[in-house]
C-alpha cells in the first residue's frame, strides 16, 4: 500500500522508515528532511500547526546540514549593509520565505521565532510570503535566525523590495483609502436620497429637501475631489498627449453632475444626483482596485524571485594573500582564487591551474568541462576538481548569467498584444461615447427640452464601460485565487488566456520529468564475478568522484583505494587490492559492448578486461506518466542532456518527439521555429539553461524546485516540484475564458441595449447608475463562480 507523507503530502517509499508520533497517532513521513522538520516542530510544542493547517507543507530539505552551513555567509557585515536596517540596538530585515503554504505556516514561523532569545519582533505576511524580523544583534546572528527557520522547513532569504514594488504598495494603500471613503459616503448619501425619492417621511417639505441636499453635498464633496481624483488625473494625462481614454467621459460625467448639483443646491431649484455620483465613483474605483490588485500580486511574486543571493569571492592581493570579498564589488583585472567545490563568482579567464567545471546550470550538460590556463570560465558554474586562479574580465553586471537574464527581459518586453488591441479599441469607443452624448445634448436642446443636460449625463453614465472594465480583472482575480489554492502561482495574468491556445507542450527533462538524481537501475556482471564485490569496488572508485553519476553508487563498505585518477569526460581509475580498475564509458574501459545489454552506460574493468556494466538513470518523478496522458496537446522533450539519456526517458514516458543535446540558444531557436509554424508553445523547465526558451515560449511554467532565474522568467510557477497539478491550470483557464466571454457579452449587450433609452431621454441619471451597478454586480457574481 502506498501512503502519503503526513508532513508534505508526497508519496512515501514502500515501508518508509521515517515515522513520528503527532497529535496522538503514528504518522508516516517520506524522507529524512520531512522527519527532521516534523521533529523540530514537535519538540518546540508547535503540534497545533498540523491541526489547523489547510495545506500540506513544502517538502523538507534532505541535505539540511549542508544548507545550514551555507547560511553563515549572511553574517558578513559587508553583505548586511545592503538589506539590513539598523536602529539603535536592533536590526531589522525583510525575508522572503519559501515553503509558506497556508495561514498555519505564518503562525508556526511566528511562534518558532518569537521563542528564540534575541528576537524582538516577527511579522509574517502570508499573501506575500514574506516575514519582517527585527532582532538584537548582540544576542543572535542573522544566520542563526535563518537556521531556525530552515529547521522547521522554511527557506528564508534576505530580500529588498525594489522601487517598483514600493510604489505599487503605496498605490494600493491610496486605492484602499479612496475606496473606503467612497463606500462609506455612498451609503450615507444613498440613505438620504432614497428618503427623497421614495418620500418615506410623507410629504417632505421644501425646507427638509434643501437640508438633505446640503448634507449630501457636504458628504459628496470629499468623494468627488479625493476618491475621484484618479480619474481626473488620468483624463488630464491623456488629454495632454492629445489622446482620449476611458477617464475622459467619466470625468466629464462626474464633474458636470456634481457642479450641476452644486448649482441647484445653492439656488434651491432643480435637481441634484449626489448619490449617483458617489455610487458611480465607488463602483469604478472598485474595478480599478481589482485590476490593480491582480497586477500588484503578480509583481510581488516576481519580486520575491529576485532574492539577494550573495556570492563571495577570495580576492588575491599583490602578495597573493586571499581576502574575502563580495562578487558584486569585483572589478575587471582583479584576481580571484577558486578552490575545489566552490562556485565561480564571476566571468573570467584562468591564469593558473586547471579544473573540471560543472556548467550544467548554463548548458544543461551534466558532464564537467575540463578547462586550462587561458580558458574562459563563467560566473555561477561550479568548480568540481582542481584549484584555479582567475582574472576577472567583466564586472558582475555584465556576467553571462546576467546576460541571460537580459535576453529574457528583452524577450518578455515584446509579449503583450492583447493589451495594445484593447487600448486602440477603447480610444474609438470613448470618442464614440463623447460624440453620442454631445449629439443627444444638441438634439434635445434644439427640441427645447429642459432635460437636455441630464440626458447627456445619462448617456455618459449608461455607456460607461464599468461592467466591461470589471469583466476581465474580476475573472482573472478569482482564477488566480483558485490556482493559488491549488499550488500554482500565476505571475502574468494574461498567460491564463494564452493557456487555452497551447497546442504544443515542450518539457525539459532533468528536474521537470525526472528528479535530477541518478540511481542504479541494473547491474550486469561477467561470469565468475560476485555482484556484491563488484558493487563495493564501484562504490570505492566513485566515492572520490565529483561526477553527478557517482552518487548512484554510494555505499558504506568502502575498500582501500590508491592511485586514484580522474580522466575528465571518460571516467575514473584506481588501484584496489592488487588490481587496476577503471570505471566509466565504453571507450575508457575498453569494454566490448556486445557483452552487455544496450542500456548499460557505465562499465567497470579489471586490468583492462571488462567485468561489469551498470545502467544508471535519472529517476522519473512520481505520477509523471499518468499526468502526461491527460494532455491532448502534442508533447515534446527539449533537453540539454545527451540524446541517449533523453531517448531513454522519452521511451519511458511515451513521448515520440524528443530533442537532446540542445544548448540554450538552440532550444530558443527550436521554439521560435515552432512558433513561426503557427504553433502555440508552452515550455516547462527548471534550470538557468531553460531561461531564454522560457521567455520566448507563449506560456512558460517553472517547476517547483526551479532555479530563481527560471522562476523569475516564467509566467506560471508550480509550487510543488511535480507536474501533476498542471491539468488544473488548463481546466481553470478554460473556465476563466468562458466566464470572461460571458461577462463581456453581458456588459456590451447591456450597454448597447440601454443606449437608445438614454439617448431617447427615458432614463434619468439615477436610473442609469442603478442599471450600471446591477450590471457590474452580475459580472462580479459570475466571476466568483470560478472560485468554487
Amino acid at each position: 500500500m502506498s501512503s502519503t507523507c503526513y508532513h508534505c503530502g508526497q508519496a512515501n517509499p514502500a515501508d518508509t522508515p521515517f515515522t513520528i508520533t503527532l497529535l496522538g497517532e503514528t504518522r508516516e513521513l517520506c524522507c529524512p528532511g520531512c522527519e527532521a522538520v516534523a521533529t523540530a516542530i514537535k519538540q518546540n510544542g508547535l503540534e497545533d500547526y498540523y491541526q489547523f493547517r489547510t495545506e500540506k507543507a513544502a517538502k523538507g530539505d534532505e541535505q539540511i546540514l549542508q544548507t545550514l552551513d551555507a547560511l553563515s555567509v549572511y553574517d558578513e557585515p559587508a553583505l548586511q549593509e545592503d538589506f539590513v536596517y539598523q536602529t539603535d540596538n536592533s536590526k531589522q530585515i525583510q525575508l522572503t520565505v519559501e515553503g509558506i503554504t497556508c495561514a498555519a505556516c505564518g503562525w508556526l514561523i511566528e511562534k518558532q521565532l518569537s521563542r528564540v532569545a534575541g528576537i524582538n519582533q516577527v511579522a509574517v505576511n502570508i499573501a506575500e510570503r514574506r516575514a519582517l524580523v527585527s532582532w538584537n544583534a548582540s544576542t543572535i546572528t542573522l544566520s542563526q535566525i535563518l537556521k531556525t527557520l530552515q529547521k522547521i522547513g522554511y527557506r528564508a532569504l534576505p530580500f529588498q523590495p525594489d522601487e517598483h514594488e514600493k510604489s505599487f504598495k503605496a498605490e494600493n494603500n491610496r486605492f484602499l483609502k479612496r475606496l473606503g471613503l467612497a463606500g462609506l459616503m455612498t451609503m450615507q448619501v444613498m440613505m438620504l436620497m432614497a428618503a427623497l425619492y421614495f418620500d418615506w417621511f410623507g410629504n417632505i417639505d421644501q425646507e427638509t429637501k434643501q437640508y438633505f441636499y446640503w448634507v449630501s453635498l457636504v458628504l459628496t464633496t470629499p468623494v468627488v475631489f479625493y476618491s475621484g481624483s484618479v480619474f481626473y488625473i488620468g483624463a488630464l494625462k491623456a488629454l495632454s498627449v492629445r489622446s482620449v481614454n476611458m477617464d475622459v467621459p467619466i470625468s466629464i460625467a462626474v464633474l458636470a453632475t456634481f457642479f450641476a448639483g452644486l448649482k441647484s443646491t445653492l439656488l434651491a431649484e432643480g435637481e441634484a444626483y449626489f448619490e449617483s455620483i458617489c455610487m458611480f465613483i465607488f463602483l469604478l474605483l472598485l474595478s480599478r482596485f481589482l485590476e490593480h490588485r491582480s497586477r500588484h500580486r503578480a509583481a510581488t511574486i516576481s519580486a520575491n524571485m529576485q532574492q539577494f543571493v550573495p556570492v563571495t569571492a577570495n580576492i588575491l592581493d599583490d602578495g597573493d594573500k586571499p581576502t574575502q570579498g563580495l562578487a558584486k564589488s569585483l572589478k575587471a583585472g582583479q584576481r580571484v582564487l577558486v578552490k575545489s567545490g566552490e562556485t565561480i563568482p564571476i566571468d573570467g579567464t584562468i591564469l593558473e591551474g586547471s579544473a573540471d567545471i560543472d556548467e550544467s546550470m548554463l548548458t544543461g550538460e551534466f558532464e564537467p568541462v575540463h578547462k586550462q590556463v587561458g580558458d574562459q570560465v563563467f560566473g555561477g558554474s561550479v568548480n568540481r576538481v582542481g584549484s584555479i586562479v582567475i582574472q576577472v574580465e567583466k564586472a558582475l553586471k555584465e556576467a553571462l548569467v546576467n546576460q541571460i537574464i537580459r535576453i529574457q527581459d528583452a524577450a518578455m518586453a515584446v509579449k503583450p498584444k492583447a493589451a495594445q488591441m484593447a487600448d486602440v479599441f477603447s480610444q474609438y469607443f470613448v470618442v464614440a461615447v463623447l460624440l453620442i452624448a454631445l449629439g443627444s445634448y444638441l438634439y434635445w436642446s434644439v427640441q427645447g427640452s429642459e432635460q437636455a443636460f441630464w440626458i447627456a449625463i445619462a448617456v455618459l453614465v449608461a455607456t460607461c464601460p464599468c461592467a466591461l472594465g470589471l469583466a476581465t480583472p474580476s475573472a482573472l482575480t478569482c482564477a488566480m485565487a483558485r490556482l493559488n489554492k491549488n499550488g500554482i502561482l500565476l505571475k502574468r495574468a494574461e498567460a491564463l488566456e494564452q493557456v487555452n491556445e497551447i497546442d504544443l507542450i515542450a518539457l525539459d527533462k532533468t528536474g521537470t520529468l525526472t528528479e535530477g538524481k541518478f540511481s542504479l537501475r541494473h547491474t550486469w556482471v561477467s561470469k565468475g564475478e560476485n555482484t556484491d564485490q563488484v558493487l563495493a569496488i564501484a562504490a570505492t572508485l566513485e566515492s572520490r568522484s565529483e561526477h553527478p553519476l557517482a552518487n548512484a553508487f554510494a555505499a558504506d563498505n568502502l575498500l582501500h583505494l590508491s592511485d586514484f585518477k580522474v580522466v575528465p569526460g571518460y571516467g575514473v581509475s584506481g588501484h584496489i587490492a592488487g588490481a587496476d580498475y577503471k570505471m566509466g564509458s565504453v571507450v575508457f574501459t575498453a569494454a566490448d559492448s556486445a557483452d552487455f545489454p544496450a542500456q548499460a552506460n557505465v562499465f567497470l574493468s579489471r586490468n583492462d578486461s571488462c567485468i561489469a556494466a551498470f545502467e544508471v538513470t535519472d529517476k522519473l518523478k512520481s505520477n509523471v506518466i499518468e499526468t502526461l496522458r491527460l494532455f491532448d496537446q502534442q508533447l515534446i522533450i527539449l533537453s540539454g542532456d545527451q540524446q541517449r539519456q533523453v531517448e531513454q526517458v522519452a521511451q519511458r514516458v511515451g513521448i515520440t518527439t524528443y530533442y537532446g543535446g540542445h544548448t540554450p540558444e538552440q532550444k530558443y531557436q527550436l521554439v521560435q521555429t515552432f512558433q513561426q509554424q503557427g504553433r502555440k508553445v508552452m515550455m516547462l523547465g527548471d534550470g538557468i539553461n531553460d531561461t531564454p526558451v522560457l521567455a520566448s515560449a507563449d506560456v512558460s511554467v517553472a517547476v517547483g524546485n526551479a532555479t530563481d532565474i527560471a522562476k523569475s522568467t516564467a509566467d506560471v510557477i508550480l509550487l510543488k516540484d511535480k507536474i501533476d497539478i498542471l491539468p488544473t491550470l488548463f481546466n481553470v483557464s478554460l473556465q476563466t475564458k468562458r466566464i470572461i466571454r460571458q461577462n463581456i457579452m453581458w456588459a456590451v449587450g447591456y450597454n448597447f441595449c440601454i443606449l437608445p433609452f438614454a439617448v431617447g431621454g427615458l432614463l434619468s441619471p439615477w436610473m442609469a447608475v442603478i442599471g450600471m451597478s446591477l450590471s457590474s454586480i452580475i459580472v462580479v457574481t459570475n466571476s466568483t463562480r470560478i472560485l468554487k
Partner: protein
Amino acid sequence: MSIIYVLIPLAVLIIAIAIAVFFWAVKSKQFEDLDRQGYNILFDDDLSPEEKKLADERKRRNE
C-alpha cells in the same frame, strides 16, 4: 421632524470618525495580509499551561 437636524449631523460626525479609523488602519498596514489573521483565534497559544490542558481534555472527551 426637527430631530433630524440633530441626528443627521451626528451621523455625519460618526462617519467622519469611522473614516479616520479606516485611514489609520490602512496606514498601519492592517490590510496587508487578510488571509492570516483570521486563523489566529484557532491557536490556543494565548492560554496558560493549565488552561491548555483543560482544553485538551475537553477535546478528548468530545471525540
